[in-house]
């Protein structure tokens, strides 16, 4: 079984065999005459690749790579116009900045709470949907639907539900409980987590469901003949063979966890309750106040953390996939 990272960065030899041939075998048997053909094929390949990549790469460079480089440069000077080189001083200032530190902490906290929750819930949901039920396809679409509900609609319903005089407080009131100010207390954090989960659980569920359906049923049969209980089967077979899917889900969950900013921003504005004041709010506000040094150094720090995270993931998954074999 190919792992996520092998699929993303396959070894050369794997690639030539194609996805079909790579299962279980490290080296597909050489086909007669393949070597000669491949040499001819390789001649123009670099050039062809360049042509195919040209449009994407040009745009990617202009709109992503160059801006990123420019951003890094700005983070090292004291003013965007005719600034002089100050080394890491912007970074030192930034790290000493209380607001930034809190924003970073809250971003970290939000990701650390919401991403695992999202993965656990979507896995549970996928396992339920994978059982014998009626109307699986319709349920699947239903759970996926929040993904396509536009931000404005979400915001509208959000207000109706979580406003000080909103529906939820109405329910609490009817139960004789004191109403809560959802968006202006620590509860805001959980409100955002719920909205994030509501929106993204479906996407991950679809991914997990496909992963589950891809595990050969014979594995379970063999395990139950060997006397493994249901839980043990789940732990040793389901979880193990879902690892590649889980990594992909993890990456998508992180991307989506950054995107929840849109909704938060629309509902709570530039300065929301502290617990949901994320790095994106910080950067957005630094942009509004034209403090480009802080913004670019914060951006670069965030980028470094993301790159490091992806790298660590890569390593971890490699070692896990080795143990699966």
């Amino acid at each position, binding site marked *: 079984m190919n792992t996520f990272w092998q699929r993303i960065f396959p070894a050369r030899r794997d690639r030539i065999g194609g996805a079909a041939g790579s299962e279980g075998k490290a080296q597909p048997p050489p086909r007669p005459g393949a070597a000669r053909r491949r040499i001819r094929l390789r001649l123009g390949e670099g050039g062809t690749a360049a042509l195919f990549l040209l449009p994407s790469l040009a745009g990617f460079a202009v709109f992503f790579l160059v801006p990123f480089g420019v951003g890094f440069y700005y983070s090292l000077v004291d003013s965007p116009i005719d600034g002089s080189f100050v080394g890491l001083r912007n970074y030192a200032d930034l790290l000493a900045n209380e607001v930034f530190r809190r924003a970073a902490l809250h971003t970290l906290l939000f990701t650390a709470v919401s991403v695992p929750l999202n993965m656990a819930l979507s896995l549970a949901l996928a396992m339920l949907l994978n059982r014998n039920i009626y109307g699986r396809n319709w349920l699947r679409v239903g759970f996926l639907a929040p993904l*396509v509900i536009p931000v404005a609609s979400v915001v509208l319903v959000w207000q109706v539900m979580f406003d*000080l005089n909103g529906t939820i407080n109405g329910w609490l009131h009817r139960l004789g409980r004191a109403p809560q100010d959802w968006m202006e207390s620590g509860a805001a954090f959980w409100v955002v987590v719920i909205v994030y989960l509501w929106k993204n659980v479906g996407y991950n569920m679809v991914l997990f469901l496909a992963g589950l359906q891809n595990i050969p049923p014979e594995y379970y049969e063999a395990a139950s003949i060997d006397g493994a209980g249901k839980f043990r089967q789940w732990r040793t077979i389901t979880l193990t063979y879902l690892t590649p899917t889980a990594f992909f889900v993890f990456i998508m969950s992180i991307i989506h966890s950054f995107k929840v900013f849109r909704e938060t921003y629309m509902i709570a504005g530039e300065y929301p309750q502290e617990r949901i004041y994320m790095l994106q709010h910080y*950067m957005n506000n630094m942009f509004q106040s034209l403090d480009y040094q802080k913004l670019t150094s914060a951006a670069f720090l965030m980028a470094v953390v993301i790159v490091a995270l992806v790298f660590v993931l890569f390593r971890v998954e490699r070692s896990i996939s080795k143990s699966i074999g």
Partner: protein
Amino acid sequence: MQSNAKPAAAAADAPRPKRPPANRPQAAVVKRAVRKLAKEARKTALTAALIGLVTIFLFPIALTVTNSLMAESEIAINFFAISEDKSNASDPRIAGTYVHLKWIPDRVTIAQYYEVLVKKQQFLIMFWNSVRMVVPIIAGQLAVASLAAYAFALLRFPMREPLFFAYIVTMLMPFQVTLVPNFIVADKLGLLNTYSAIILPGVFGAFGVFLLRQFMMYIPYAYIEAARADGASHLHIFARIVLPMCKPGLAALAILVFVDSWNMIEQPLIFLHDAIKQPLSVYLSVISEGARGIAFAACAIYMAPTLLVMLYAEQHLIEGIQLSGIKG
């Protein structure tokens, strides 16, 4: 499981016992029937639970649609408690009242739709603005990303892996990370306050390359090799073999990009100065504050395209998402 359900059903259909000593087989038949019933019950219960859960997921859609059919006055009464301005919160008229969630309109009316679509021309202008940004982004991204994905998935060239790693990393970055430099680049290129400032970065987003590449990785290399041996050019292989095989991936990408760019808020707010150029997403965030009476209809119209596209291409979307992450 399936295999023992069948004999049980057959036994139920044929009540006459074939053999006289009926005691043991009959007990087995009853046992089987009970087991089948229990299984059926479990299946129904699980389905019911999941339907309950999915209702929560669909709740905002239902709320938006039903409320869009109410008259403005009815909305005003129901949502009176949510005042725009928080200084009113201590107002005794508001303090004890809460939003009245109403599912069935007293009187079904399309007044909201009439107001939004016919009376307020601004709405249609914004809708058109959104379309003008989203359509080029989708078309451009499909074209550019599929070409690049072909190179990443099926061609070999130096620096392929590091380059792809760069794509993945940028895909993960929130928009704010490259905000300032992006702004400066747009300024240098003279794109500020034009739709190009939004369309071009959208076209070159890394997500499409990533998704389609994952898809193309599953195309057996033998196909390409065989086509090459027959003398087909890469462009030919791309257009005639790879693209048709990637239809679900392309459809999934189109939908995901559509949803994402239909919802753009940060980008237009930063790159477009003129209010009249703003897309619907930005406009809606403003009207939901002012006139709640028409907000539901506006939102319903706004989400109709994405929902319809999703329902229409649901199978492709799911297949596309699945194949991007799975299959080992």
